[in-house]
């Protein structure tokens, strides 16, 4: 059994850029503890001489010609078509840097 604390859940949510309310923290604490408790039986498998697998294709370094392909390019308008706020043909985002006060 793995018991996550409210603090653990808040920390994970913070890393994942999710804002949780106190009700959600309590609910997810129980559910995530159950799931992590279940998957923890993997610890019993002997893996000291095993290499990890991150993909199954056996392909390596797949490249293409470094050339523009007009068939698979978007116009500026198309690229911006999913956003609500644009400015002079750019995506508009909230400021992340502040001026020295």
């Amino acid at each position, binding site marked *: 059994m793995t018991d996550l604390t409210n603090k653990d859940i808040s920390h994970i949510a913070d890393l*994942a850029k999710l804002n949780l309310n106190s009700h959600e923290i309590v609910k997810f604490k129980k559910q995530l503890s159950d799931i992590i408790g279940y998957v923890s039986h993997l610890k019993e498998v002997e893996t000291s001489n095993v*290499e990890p697998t991150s993909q199954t294709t056996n392909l390596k370094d797949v490249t293409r010609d470094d050339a523009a392909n007009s068939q698979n390019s978007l116009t500026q308008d198309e690229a911006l078509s999913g956003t609500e706020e644009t400015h002079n043909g750019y995506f508009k985002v909230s400021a992340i840097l502040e001026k020295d006060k």
Partner: protein
Amino acid sequence: MKFNPPLTIEETQKGLLKKDFSAVDLVDSYLDRIKKYDKNLNAIITLAEDSAYEKAKKVDRLISDYKENAFKDYPLLGVVVIHKDMFLTKGIRTTAASNVLKDYIPSYSATTVKKFDAAGCITLAKANCDAWAHGSSGENSDFGPTKNPWNENFVAGGSSSGSAASLAANYCLIATGTDTCGSVRVPANFCGVVGLKPTYGSVSRYGVIAMASSLDSVGHFSRTVEDSRKIFEVTKGEDGLDATLKNSNIILDKSKITVGIPKEFFVKGLDKDVEKGVFAAINLLKKKGINFKEVSLPHTKYGISVYYIIQPAEVSSNLGRYDGIRFGDEREVFGDEAKRRIMLGTYVLSAGYYDAYYNQAMKVRSIIIKEVDNVFKDVDALIAPVAPTNAFKLGEKTNNPLSMYLTDIYAATANLTGIPSIAIPYGFSKNRLPLGFQIMAPKFSEDMLVSLGKMFQQEISWKPEVPNI
């Protein structure tokens, strides 16, 4: 003209050629059924009526002008398809069944969508699914659960719930899905249709909303194994856009085929009806001269745990792009299941836990792959149940995520190892819900799945059925 459209590609194309009906008639008829039944079944999120009629008229012109030659140039001419709402469709809303993307209209189409278009298909609608393809029952959709056409009190299976239900309800001739851990095979099994999860790296994922990138495969639904083959002929192959693709096709020329029965798939928790169904199928295939042999895959029991570490890790990364800036809504709009998986993935990747969970899961994945590779030195394919039970009741597992996750316990092997698997319907339970089984084969051996599947459907003189809705 409205009528009940035929259930196979061959009958549909024969009817079109003989002018028994037109492609416009087909669209009329499917739409009529959707409008009649879908308020209740909830398999569809978005209809594409205008573009479907436009394409249907084009199909009718092609058939008038070129007769049977039209079908040579366009192998799926006149085939009406419904795409899971994970596939980007240019100009047609694509939501991933999540409120985050409820207004998103893509500016390009997925490779597979383009291939279906070029092969003569008519796109009719976008199908409901678990939001972001996270789920085994279809109940995680922000657009409400899809009901099983065989019995509306039961789930359709997930995550490609709407695709499988659309096919069972005869809203279309074929449908697409994605399978990261059973998301094509489980709903196919619950709804009584054929579902193919191809080899990882055989069908392009370009333009399909990513869930867990080392596991996602793009598959499809049909009513016969032969139709599944026809669709795969169109969808497979390199596209220069998805770097995991390889053109490969292994054909085994062998007079005696041996199929393994992995004993770890027939353990406590497997429903008796489901188990009986698989063994009945084995006996039918024996009559056709197929050899069967018990084999052992002892690490099968760890598969779902490996999956529930690797998959959320990859989910947390893939859903990182949804920041509400370039498209879609803010992160607070994610539903509970997406939040759970993002947090689970963030946890297993975080400092202090990476080695214990993520790295250990990747190592156990290597062991499972080696075990399966070794078994395939001995047998040509594997037969197993698709899920521990057939369709369960709506709401039965929604409050217990862990018990929902265990629905996919028999699906994990194919995704973790990258091998192809086909779910084939066979028979019904006492309460008249579909049963079936899956056949798995080595990578790029879809040909083996098709020959065994077709042999089976010939032996039982398979006639697809549409339930009374």
